[in-house]
């Protein structure tokens, strides 16, 4: 059972983030860490490989400046190796461009039975990359997995919904996005941390992936960030004096929100 997990390395959310005034995008030139929302996919992959009695977990990531510190965290958890795409031409790449690059990187991993992703990154939140990867690779896609089981050549997924969950299945290989919080990511052991140093990181650029640099980055992006403004301050709430019919206002308010 060979599993690919797409992981993103992001600026530490504990540090205050800053925008680059020229590009109007998040500054990503400092140390990057493993996106917490990706740690659930890594844990899920490690559990599935264990349950299958063997196989490797391979990480696929795209990051500026050959950054690997987030990858090392996932390698310390137990992933076997990783593919890192790093190329100055990738600055400003949008969601579809990211999917193109990750799809090309996934193709470098031989014999992948399953591709796991998070549902969305903690610093971008487009939530579209997993489905775009599936489409580009011509694979079935299941989103919002709360549990995953492999049965022969089929992946069976409990797909989280607002009301509960759907039971879905798809033939392997498939792309499945894992909901944050559904498994408890393991803490890396000291031995894992030591072993991670010597695990292979296959670093590639656009040329190695056969991708035209003009089709990704700012050049290939279908988006332009025109302006960035502070979010409007929260407005004062409505104060209702209860004259004995206050409950009706509350009911009407909740009804309007469609929570009752």
């Amino acid at each position: 059972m060979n599993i690919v997990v797409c992981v993103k390395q992001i600026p530490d959310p504990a540090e205050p983030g800053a925008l680059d005034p020229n590009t109007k995008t998040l500054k990503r030139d400092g140390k990057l860490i493993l996106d917490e929302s990706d740690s659930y996919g890594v844990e899920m992959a490690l559990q599935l490989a264990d349950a299958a009695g063997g196989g490797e977990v391979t990480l696929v990531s795209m990051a500026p400046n050959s950054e690997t510190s987030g990858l090392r965290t996932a390698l310390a958890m137990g992933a076997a190796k990783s593919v890192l795409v790093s190329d100055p031409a990738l600055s400003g790449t949008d969601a579809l461009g990211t999917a193109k690059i990750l799809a090309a990187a996934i193709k470098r991993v031989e014999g992948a039975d399953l591709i796991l992703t998070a549902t969305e990154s903690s610093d971008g939140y487009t939530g579209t990359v997993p489905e775009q990867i599936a489409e580009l690779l011509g694979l079935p896609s299941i989103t919002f997995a709360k549990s995953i089981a492999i049965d022969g050549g089929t992946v069976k997924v409990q797909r989280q919904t607002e009301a509960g969950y759907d039971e879905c299945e798809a033939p392997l290989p498939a792309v499945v996005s894992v909901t944050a919080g559904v498994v408890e990511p393991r803490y890396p052991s000291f031995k894992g941390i030591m072993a991670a140093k010597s695990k292979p990181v296959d670093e590639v650029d656009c040329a190695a992936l056969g991708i035209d640099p003009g089709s990704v980055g700012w050049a290939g992006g279908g988006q332009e960030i025109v302006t960035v403004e502070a979010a409007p301050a929260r407005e004062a709430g409505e104060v209702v004096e209860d004259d004995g019919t206050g409950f009706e206002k509350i009911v009407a308010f909740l009804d309007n929100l469609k929570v009752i």
Partner: protein
Amino acid sequence: MRFAFSDQQLEFAAAVRDLLASCCTPAHVRECWDNETGHSPERWRQLADMGVVGMTVPEAHGGLGMNELDWVLVLEETGRAALPEPIVETVAVGAPMLAEFGPTELADRWLPAIAAGDVIVAVQHQGKPYLAAAGYADLLLLASGNEMHAVPRADVRLVEEQTSVDGARRLFGVDWHRTPGTLIAGGEGGYRTINASFDRGALGAAAQLIGLADRMLEMTVAYAKEREQFGAPIGSFQAVKHHLADALLAVEFARPVVYRAAFSLATGGADRSRDVSMAKAYASDAASAVSKVALQCHGAIGYTVEYDLHLFMKRAWALASSWGDAAWHRERVAMAVLGPVPGALPVEPDPDPLGETLA
């Protein structure tokens, strides 16, 4: 020459910090104040699985064979969480003592079990009547004159349980008999064993004190930003700012001294004991100063047992006076730098002249 921790050493510390943030919250520490032993077997198991407990056990005995520079940051993290387990005794003192000075039979018997997390160690030092964690430790390292012995707890009688100022710290006297089969080292070797182990224990306690001080300061800064008086957060008042700045200075001055002592121990420096004493004196003073500032800036609430800060202050008080208090260590530094002062009392290896009961 590079005087910074390696990425790996920093990653070890980060992993321990993450683990303890989930399994050693103030609520967990409070549980250890209230339970029978002051100990959590599940948490010890988690620390062993991560590799913390066996990190100083030699690789041949199933550990990671690491030294003081590898564990000083890890123990700082255990202080930050006010971890109630005898991690200093087991990791910093016990395993290296058995590995470095013990006969093969004792090392083979105990070290693999320590690395596996199956054996917890409590340590007694010369002149110290009481042992922390002796109520649940599996192996007691006991001093008798210039001899150190490794005695299973099953073979001793625990007497005179003492309460410590820190509710999670249970102290016991031990009634035991020396046998040739338990001897780790005696004579000249025993003297070296006792000294080296005492220095490692003092460094371990110093590292924990830095973590405790850092955490108390962090809690106090958060409180000063949140608590309002006269229509403004109290942290905006100059008198409070000065207190917090003094506390930060104390921690930041002590921290490099502690790291320096770890370097001296790891590299077998000739001035090892002097450097450890500087570290323990600075760390004890810093943690005591920070707890005072923390208590004052929190107002009366800091004194109540129900408030989390209380747990950290009490741990800091207990550790500041164990493994030698600041005054004792300053005296040892003076002795190392100036030599014996005519007419002064000799510095005996009695790190706790007041006894643990007052700690």
